[in-house]
């Protein structure tokens, strides 16, 4: 199921919220668990088994870690859990990629099963790993209740698109939680904002980005317009989903950590990654980068650490070589900032530093969005005038004219100003603000109904 569907918003979510609200306290996690499994199974029931296996394995690992006293025994249990989790993730996500690469490079004929990727596997595997590692480190106690643990791993608001919720963040709320009417309202405020980002901004920006990418001949400015539209699309898409997850969590009585902090306002690439998909970058920081020694090592080792972390970050986003390249691109930029350009960058005026960072990130998204290297090369070429159709053309002018309002509004939403204004408005003219939010919900509904609009048959005749 996806959040941005009429079925989810008007049937599934209200039913689950009501059941959760009125269930006896000790049954709440059970309600949430059943709802989450139903949510996950909707449309693709086969992989429910895999997810439940992951739940059971990591639950038992937690108990074993709790029972084992000897250090070597604990290490062995942890190693077993890490291997099993990564093996499952590796097989379902990377096997096809690995086999194709090996077959291509070495002329082998290893079988490729062409398995569809289990939805959310990258997210729930990382959540499970954070749990077992934290139990191993003694940061938290093992969870004794299978239902509570399963609820943590499968919770539908963050199951398929994050944020990656750390067990320690919601451990207490798994046992005891509640939401007042005002907290439900706060959650809904966030859900509506997230839904609007996804449906009103990201989807429409996506149409523009796709139109530019599909065009057989691009002018330089068209290529930049398409790249900018994609950068905005991926931000509003992803952060919109995170907003909805955080909002729904709030309605259920959970507090999830923030996942985005106005990333396009960053003044350096280093800062960008502190503001973008925070739950993922902090996962890699806590469980890979710091254990490797972080930056408290020699320069050579530090660069190697960055390289390893960013190769993995790239691969986490998808099993394809362009994601590897994208990860390396960021490793390179971060190393440069740390050892070469960082000082100069910090002396730039804020606006210039932001523009430069945004430029580098936008080029990064071109690498990210093109799994085909030839197409990526062509597009990057057009950005600098190689193989492009002139500097500006009519298609660019028309696209700009048709989307000017959308782009301007999207750009405005990249900074904190509008959200601050909205918070001020809700504090001064609360009823007007409610009307505004009702209008947003109505507008999103109209776009969602229109998504199934499919006129045809007699058109051409």
């Amino acid at each position, binding site marked *: 199921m996806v959040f941005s569907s009429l079925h989810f918003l008007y049937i599934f979510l209200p039913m689950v919220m009501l059941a959760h609200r009125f269930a006896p306290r000790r049954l709440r996690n059970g309600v949430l668990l059943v709802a989450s499994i139903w949510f996950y199974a909707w449309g693709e029931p086969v992989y429910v088994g895999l997810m439940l296996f992951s739940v059971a394995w990591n639950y038992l690992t937690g108990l074993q870690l709790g029972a084992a006293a000897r250090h070597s025994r604990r290490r062995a249990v942890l190693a077993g859990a890490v291997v099993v989790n990564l093996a499952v993730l590796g097989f379902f996500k990377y096997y096809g990629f690995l086999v194709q690469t090996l077959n291509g490079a070495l002329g082998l004929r290893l079988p490729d099963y062409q398995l569809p990727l289990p939805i959310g596997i990258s997210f729930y595997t990382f959540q499970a790993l954070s749990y077992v590692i934290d139990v191993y480190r003694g940061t938290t106690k093992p969870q004794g209740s299978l239902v509570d643990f399963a609820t943590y791993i499968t919770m539908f608001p963050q199951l398929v698109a994050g944020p990656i919720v750390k067990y320690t963040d919601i451990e207490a709320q798994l046992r005891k939680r509640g939401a007042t009417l005002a907290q439900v309202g706060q959650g809904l405020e966030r859900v509506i904002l997230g839904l609007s980002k996804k449906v009103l901004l990201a989807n429409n920006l996506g149409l523009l980005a796709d139109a530019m990418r599909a065009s057989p001949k691009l002018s330089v400015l068209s290529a930049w317009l398409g790249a900018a539209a994609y950068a905005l699309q991926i931000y509003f898409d992803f952060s919109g989903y995170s907003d909805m997850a955080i909002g729904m969590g709030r309605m259920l009585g959970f507090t999830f950590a923030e996942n985005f902090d106005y990333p396009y306002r960053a003044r350096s690439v280093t800062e960008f990654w502190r503001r973008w998909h925070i739950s993922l970058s902090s996962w890699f920081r806590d469980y890979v980068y710091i254990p490797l020694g972080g930056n408290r090592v020699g320069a050579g080792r530090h660069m190697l650490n960055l390289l390893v972390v960013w190769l993995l970050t790239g691969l986490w986003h998808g099993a394809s070589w362009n994601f590897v390249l994208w990860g390396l691109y960021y490793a390179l930029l971060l190393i440069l900032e740390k050892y070469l350009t960082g000082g100069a960058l910090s002396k730039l005026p804020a606006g210039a530093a932001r523009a430069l960072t945004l430029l580098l990130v936008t080029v990064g998204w071109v690498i990210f969005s093109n799994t085909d290297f030839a197409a990526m090369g062509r597009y990057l070429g057009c950005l600098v005038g190689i193989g492009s159709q002139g500097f500006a053309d009519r298609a660019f002018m028309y696209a700009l004219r048709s989307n000017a309002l959308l782009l301007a509004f999207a750009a405005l939403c990249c900074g904190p100003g509008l959200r601050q204004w909205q918070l001020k408005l809700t504090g001064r003219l609360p009823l007007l603000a409610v009307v505004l939010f009702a209008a947003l919900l109505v507008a999103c509904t109209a776009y969602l109904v*229109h998504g199934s609009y499919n006129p045809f048959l007699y058109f051409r005749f």
Partner: protein
Amino acid sequence: MKKKRLLFLRATAIMVLALVALLDVAFLIHRDRATSPLENRNLQQRPAMTLQGLLSGRFESRFDSYVSDQFPLRDHWIALKSTLDRLAGRTESNGVFLGRDGYLIQDFKAPSEADYRRTMDALVDFLDRHDDLAQYVLVAPTAVTVLSDALPALADAGDEVGYIHRLAEDLSETPATFIDLRPAFAEAKASTQLYYRTDHHWTSDGARLAYLELARAASLPGDTDGFERRLLSNRFQGTLSAVSGFRMNQSEDLWAYIPGDGTPQTVVTWVSENRRSASLYREESLDTRDKYAVFLGGNFPQIRIETTVNNGRALLILKDSYANCLIPFLTTGYQKLVVVDPRYFTGDLEVLMEAEGVNEVLILYNAETLAEDTALRGDIE
């Protein structure tokens, strides 16, 4: 401030709850619609839940479609979305431009080079093969060419003019007469509505003007005085508004030229339907959304029209739907019209031409359909 914020949060919760409850109750009690006239398709009905359907995912995808298709006030939501798009400055949707003066204008999509060549080669070959017949090719420009002033500013429309130029040039080698409507249409457009505002067809006035141009080339009666211009409907909502979602509440007049006392009698035969009538119009269509189907009842593989004009002239028409409202004028100049729509026709054209004793050929398309068409070349090859 804090108190007001609290009020906002509580009121938001109640507002959402009320809105969702309202729509859900409406969803539960309203009767499911079987079809959507607007979209001209069947809507998804409530699927039956079976274990097999659930496990395969078929039930789920049908259920999701069911919720969207039967969502209360569906057509209004769709209209609202298009209005919001307009407010945001969008002037194109599904290949339809939101033009000035209430015009919706279909974009022109040029054919691929290979498609163009195949159709052109087939045409040239067909025309050369039948150089004993009088031949006319009439490729009507669409609104995107004639009403280009009405396109939204900076609109990046396809090059229909270039396409028509190229057709005329390539056909000049053949025995056919190419009838170029652009000068006549350019001159008339200020005083006459040549195209519907919500539909991709030309109006009966546009068709009449085209007939007069054709009449000069083919020595047909040079006036249409025997016809009476009559309003058939003032509630015509064309396909362009349905396709684009723009101006979905706009309706317009649909006029027709109805043969009067001075015109020849006709017998119309819809060959594959085995139906016969004296009238060139099917008035039942005026009660449906597809009102343009009033002309000849819509598109059929083969229609034969016999008239009381006793001049021995028999015309084969290879056509698209633009021809449907022009054909009545042709009944004054021909004894027989053999109307073939290649998109539906599956017979042997040569055999048909022989059997009907055809001695003239008219190829009548609008540029947009001809550019996309792949059926014509199949029938004439």
